């Protein structure tokens, strides 16, 4: 009986191995959201981070001249803006003092470089060169100078995987800056995002800025996300859908910032 059983296994060992490997893959796939699995993924990404260095070097070299020119322009623009903002800050402080407001908006941020944008065509994630040794943890907001990019997911000691807004499963609570309407933004496709189920009675104009609402433990209020490109009626005709053009171009992003402090968010 036992001999027959082992004989059977020997006859079909290739298929048995296939079954085991497929079952293992499924198990790992179903454990994607388990924090321990994410932590292991972060550690392995750390070990093999050297694979991404040639990619970084080539990107850096090819973008050096372009970046230098852009930085010069940015420097000039920021110098002018800085002078203007100093004046606004003084005025703001004076008005805050008058209204007895407490200025509590201060974020601790960590700069990071993008090591890899992922090889899947949908760009679900980016790998950045900071990790738990820099104070990074899961579910921290990832931003750039242009606006929101995503959130940290798997954290290794020196690298971190971040889910970005082009991921089809990414959701973020947003607010239209002028009309003050709240909504949930999700990625649409072909470079655009959308906010659904906006009442038809609300008037939103194309060009209106979309910011984070602050009703989240991850994203502080008032971070820029994008602007309204168009408004379309929903399929059932009961609502309207706002098509959003994000400010951040994921394809060209090289540096990001991670907001460390989560306690001092000030909600709008």
């Amino acid at each position: 009986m036992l001999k027959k059983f082992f004989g059977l296994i020997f006859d079909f060992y290739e298929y048995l191995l296939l079954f085991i490997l497929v079952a293992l893959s499924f198990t790992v796939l179903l454990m994607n959201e388990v924090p321990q699995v994410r932590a292991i993924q972060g550690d392995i990404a750390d070990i093999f981070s050297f694979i991404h260095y040639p990619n970084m070097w080539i990107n850096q070299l090819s973008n050096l001249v372009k970046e230098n020119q852009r930085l010069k322009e940015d420097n000039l623009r920021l110098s002018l803006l800085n002078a203007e903002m100093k004046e606004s800050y003084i005025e703001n402080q004076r008005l805050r003092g008058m209204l007895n407001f407490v200025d509590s908006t201060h974020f601790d941020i960590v700069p990071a470089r993008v090591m890899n944008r992922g090889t899947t065509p949908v760009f679900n994630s980016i790998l950045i060169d900071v990790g738990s040794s820099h104070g990074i943890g899961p579910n921290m907001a990832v931003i750039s100078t242009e606006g929101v990019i995503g959130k940290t997911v798997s954290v290794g000691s020196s690298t971190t995987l971040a889910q970005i807004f082009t991921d089809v499963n990414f959701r973020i609570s947003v607010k239209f800056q002028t009309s003050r309407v709240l909504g949930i933004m999700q990625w649409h496709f072909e470079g655009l995002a959308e906010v659904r189920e906006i009442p038809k009675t609300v008037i939103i104009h194309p060009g209106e800025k979309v910011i984070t609402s602050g009703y989240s433990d991850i994203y502080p209020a008032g971070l820029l996300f994008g602007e309204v490109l168009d408004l379309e009626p929903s399929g059932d005709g009961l609502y309207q859908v706002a098509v959003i053009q994000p400010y951040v171009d994921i394809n060209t992003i090289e540096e990001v910032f991670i907001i460390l402090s989560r306690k001092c968010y000030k909600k709008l």
Partner: protein
Amino acid sequence: MLQKVIVLFCFSLLAILVQLLFVPWMTIRNIRPDFILLLVLIVGRLKGRIVGQLYGFSIGLLVDAIGMGSFLGLSALTKTISGFFSGYLKNQKGRLNLFSYYAIAIIIIFAHFVIFYLVNFKGAEFTTYHIILRYVIPASIYTSVFYILIDHFLPLGSE
């Protein structure tokens, strides 16, 4: 034996580097060839079903873990299946006619992308029809072209 493992490891690193460095330049409307899949198919074709599926699982898991994939385990799943079925092509190049031989390889590539994209887009509100037409078929064609070129013109022996 050890020498073969080292050679395979070097080729794996090379495929990952090619996928990272050059494939972004070859992307057409978000469609890109999968050179890691090509390597799995070639290993399966040369070494058979056992080595093909073991290699597919290992490199798939590595690709997922180092942040090149989307869902951890997805590449391992698709590449295990691809490695296994490409093992059926071992020593078949001279025996089967060329059309049947490459048709089998293309079906394996197509099946790989069907599973990959359907799982990848599980949260999206795309229809299966849209995913097949927009992503699976173009990616399969793009990868198949490279497979045929490599398999047909490079002197890959039976071992």
